[in-house]
């Protein structure tokens, strides 16, 4: 696969001292890469640099074979969909879509044909004469997407395009976007702070924190093997408890796990709630059932153990195997361990408890 977008050593430091440092990303043709991170992590800065709306202090941006670092936005082969206020309210949907083609002085019959094509792609055929104010939020974002697609961009940039919509619509549009992306073989850079959104639509995810990249990997790997404590904490649900690392393994109470990373001393151990299992045999952890919550296809059980609170997901059909206030035995089928200072670990543990 050829590289369609490459960002090399991108830095942009604002006067406040915030910004991004030394970001390098490569996106292959037809790939959907997501920049994921909490607000203020710099993901939008990276995206806007690629679009040409931010002048990077350092670094090179290439689209296709071309160095576009110093190219103005209107000359870049990229198209951008913003979070909101994409459309021009004084123009009809048709005029909004036709604007770029009119600037290129295309023939009217050609423009009509292309606008039809774009509207069909986003399932809004027949809305040419409407004004943006007559459309719902989701429809407006679809028109914005159609307008971006009309540019036939080499890279499509999306800046949290669905975050202002309600949950159901967000899901729908996500799926539609993925379909269009596959159909048109689009190369996309997608920015979001919603880890669920990132996991569900991306080919690869770039997790960012405080202006730096924490991990770049496929969604499965990000979830399964988070590279840092931050990623572990940010992606999905995770229990954090204290463990002790020795050369022969990581000890949690009576349980011993392989010490793959060769850590030493006190470590933060992360356990996905689905990796906590009820167990009869030894060794196991004794726990008291403190809360049972039915959440649809699974049940969330809160357990109190000697090293703190543990959340456990069990299948909805097993709801009768746990009873409030009873003592159960659990085992951990899989753990992640991270070397971290005691302080940080405690802070994060608390942060988790409030979720």
């Amino acid at each position: 696969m050829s590289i369609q977008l490459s960002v090399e050593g991108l830095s942009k430091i604002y006067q406040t001292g915030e910004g991004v440092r030394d970001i390098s990303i490569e996106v292959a043709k037809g790939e959907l890469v997501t920049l994921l991170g909490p607000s203020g992590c710099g993901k939008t800065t990276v995206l806007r640099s690629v679009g040409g709306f931010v002048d990077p202090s350092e670094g090179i941006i290439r689209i296709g074979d071309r160095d576009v670092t110093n190219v103005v936005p209107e000359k870049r082969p990229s198209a951008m969909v913003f979070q909101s206020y994409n459309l021009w309210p004084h123009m009809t949907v048709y005029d909004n879509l036709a604007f770029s083609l009119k600037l290129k002085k295309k023939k009217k019959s050609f423009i009509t044909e292309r606008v039809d094509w774009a509207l069909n792609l986003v399932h809004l055929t027949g809305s040419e004469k409407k004004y943006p104010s007559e459309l719902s939020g989701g429809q407006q974002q679809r028109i914005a997407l159609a307008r971006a697609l009309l540019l036939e961009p080499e890279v499509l940039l999306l800046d949290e395009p669905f975050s202002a919509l309600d949950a159901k619509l967000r899901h729908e549009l996500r799926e539609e976007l993925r379909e269009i992306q596959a159909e048109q073989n689009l190369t996309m850079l997608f920015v979001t702070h919603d880890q669920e959104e990132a996991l569900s639509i991306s080919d690869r995810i770039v997790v960012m924190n405080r202006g730096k990249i924490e991990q770049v990997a496929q969604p499965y790997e990000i979830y399964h093997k988070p590279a840092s404590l931050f990623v572990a904490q940010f992606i999905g649900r995770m229990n954090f408890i204290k463990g002790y690392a020795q050369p022969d393994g990581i000890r949690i109470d009576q349980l011993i796990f392989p010490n793959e990373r060769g850590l030493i001393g006190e470590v933060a151990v992360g356990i996905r709630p689905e990796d906590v299992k009820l167990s009869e045999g030894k060794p196991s952890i004794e726990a008291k059932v403190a809360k049972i919550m039915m959440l649809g296809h699974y049940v969330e059980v809160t357990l109190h153990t000697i090293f703190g609170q543990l959340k456990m997901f069990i299948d909805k059909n097993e709801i009768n195997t746990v009873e409030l206030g009873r003592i159960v035995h659990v085992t951990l089928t899989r753990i992640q361990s991270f070397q971290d200072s005691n302080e940080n670990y405690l802070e994060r543990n608390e942060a988790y408890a409030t979720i």
Partner: protein
Amino acid sequence: MWFIKLIGKLKFTGFVCFFIFVIFFFGPLLNLLLLAFSGEWQYPDRLPSEWSLTWWTFVLQNDAIISSIWLSFLIATIVTLISLLICIPAAYAFARIQFPLRRFFLFSFLLTNAFPKMGLYVSIAVLFYQLNLMNTFVGIVLIHLINTLMYMTWIPSAAFENVHRSQEESARDVGASPLKVFWHITLPMAKPGIIVASVFTFLSSLNEAEGTFLVGIPDYRTMPVIMYSIIADYPSTAGSVFSVILTLPTILLLVAARKFVGAESFANGFKLK
């Protein structure tokens, strides 16, 4: 009382307030209109005892008055165009660029209204004598501009601020240069605010009397200036005929622009940001 019970106390109070407002608002206008068409109207009578168009013919056949009307409209048009040229870029700068003392400069446009106008004009007149601008067309236009800068900067500036940055950026993104973005996106979106400001500017120039009087006399006599002398020299009927003529363009313009002259557009213009 039975009708208070019928419509409710609150509604009744509202009705009374509205009635008082209508009297205060339309009463003088009605009186003016009656006076303009009256031939004879003595004190105890409620209505004129005799109707006549005498003063209308007097006003409309007087060359000095007719030419003053043309002069007024010419000046108002030129003043509006010049303030558009000066203020639209300024308004855009105030809306988009963060520069030091931005609020102070924006606020300074109000300062001309903070002093007694005549005092301001007299000191300007001193300056105008040195620059040979007294009794010139340019001098009058400059005096009018002092009053109109505020409308033309504040209202369009608020209108520009209501255009979101991402709306401009997406236009850049689809291939428009900054100038084309301004022409095709920003300016049309701010158009209602600019129209409102232009109407105010036009009307304020049309009705400006003090400064014009000071700077333009004796050669340049606009409608309001002529009106002063007519009120002083002729019966009040002539003055009211003239007032009606002066009010007419105001009403016509406001009706024509009422689509844009929403309370919102006006209020937006005077938000301190």
